[in-house]
């Protein structure tokens, strides 16, 4: 089983969610996070002039999928979040999960996904 953690822009959430659902990945969790990449931040307006914000609002999309499915899920996220703009499209982290348990039934691993 693989855990996919994708840091994405807020404006990409709806499209990613829709495409993941269509591909059969219904269960997911979204966190509101603040962070920055190598760009370092952006300028926002103050009363007279601007100020630098070095932590931006982003979303962390988290889902755990079967080993054989994860490349498909990752491809969907990349497809929906890629853009021509430079910077800020996000990153995807994939890691191996030892165990998954559904709390209601006690089912484990693939049966719990």
């Amino acid at each position, binding site marked *: 089983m693989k855990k996919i953690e994708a840091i994405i822009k807020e404006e990409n959430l709806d499209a990613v969610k829709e495409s993941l659902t269509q591909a059969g990945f219904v269960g997911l969790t979204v966190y509101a996070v603040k962070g920055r990449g190598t760009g370092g931040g952006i300028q926002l*307006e*103050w009363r007279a002039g601007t100020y630098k*914000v070095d932590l931006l609002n982003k979303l962390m999309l988290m889902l755990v999928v079967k080993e054989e499915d994860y490349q498909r899920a990752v491809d969907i996220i990349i497809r929906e979040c890629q853009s021509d703009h430079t910077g800020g499209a996000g990153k995807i982290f994939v890691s191996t999960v030892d165990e998954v348990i559904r709390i209601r039934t006690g089912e484990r691993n693939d049966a719990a996904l």
Partner: protein
Amino acid sequence: MNTGDIAWVLIASSLIMLMTPAVGLFYGGMVRRKNLLSTIMLSFSVLILITLQWVLFGYSLSFGPDIGHIIGGLQWLGLKGVGWEPNTDYAATIPHIAFMLFQMKFAIITPALISGAFVERIRFSSFLIFVLLWSTLVYDPMAHWIWGVGGWLKNLGALDFAGGTVIHITSGVAALAMALVIRKRKGFGKVTMEPNSIPLTLFGTILLWFGWFGFNGGSALAANGLAVHAIVTTNVAAAAGALTWMIIGWQKSRPSVIGVATGAVVGLVAITPACGFVDAISAIVIGATASAISYFFIQLRNRLNIDESLDVWACHGMAGTWGAIATGIFASKAINPAGADGLLYGNVHLFLVQLASVVVAWVFSFTMTLLIAKAIDMTRGLSVDEHAEEVGLDISQHGEEAYASI
């Protein structure tokens, strides 16, 4: 007495009452989340303290029987003799106690305005002491000089319809003096200090604009054409100030909401001394110019690296100064026969008197505030320690959080 006048002055007093907590919301939106309650509380506590100060002795010092053109006497302590009969010197058609109530709201909002200078590190108990001392030693004498019967600036012929000099110059200059004494916020100029809620700042602006109709319109002290005129010029100047700020911001990058809110307030400040003496077109010029002036002085303050945190000096001090001078330029007896003609109508005298009253307000407020600030700072400290500042004043000073987590 006139029942219409009484009703209007009571409504106007209620409108102005709303403005002091509104200052708290206006400032509160601009600080970091950990200091939101503290910032709102600064203004709210002035509403409490100065209501009592005014009734006990503040009103008597400001408007009581004159002593040497400098200060009011103590005959009206505890509102003794301030009753239902009119005081014909101040307002002939309403109860004396209604005039007292109206003036109380002015005395309350003035120290609340100063609080923007030292948010996010002021020690709450020191702030309360500051407010009591400042109101008694700076506001009450200034109010007497310009508005009190026998006051020496009033005798010179200075015009201040609704408190541009008494309220905005004194508070703005006091803010600068306080910022020079109290230490800067930790990380000032180095770390980003993000506003926690621009909508809250805009909400405060809306309440201020609304309340200002009572502030300026009520200063006619009667339900008459002059009151209506003052409200019209007030509304016009606010719009001109907001639009000008929007244009300046847009030219540099984008038209921010916080900029437009600031522009509206600055326009309102500048028209305050002039609103009952100038026509609507002059009000547009006064409001628009005020925004350009305050914008410049915010940038200057930034360059000077002074942590006058929410620009009370640039917005109230400088726009108030412009408003007082503009009154000397644009005032017209054709608008208000009880006023005087300004420079534009060939009268140099009023212009010079306005300049003199500006200089007096600057020097008096700056010097006295510096002394009061130094005295408090040396005896008990104006600011909290750095740890309390890092934790935030909401928790360290009040034991509360604006938004509980989870």
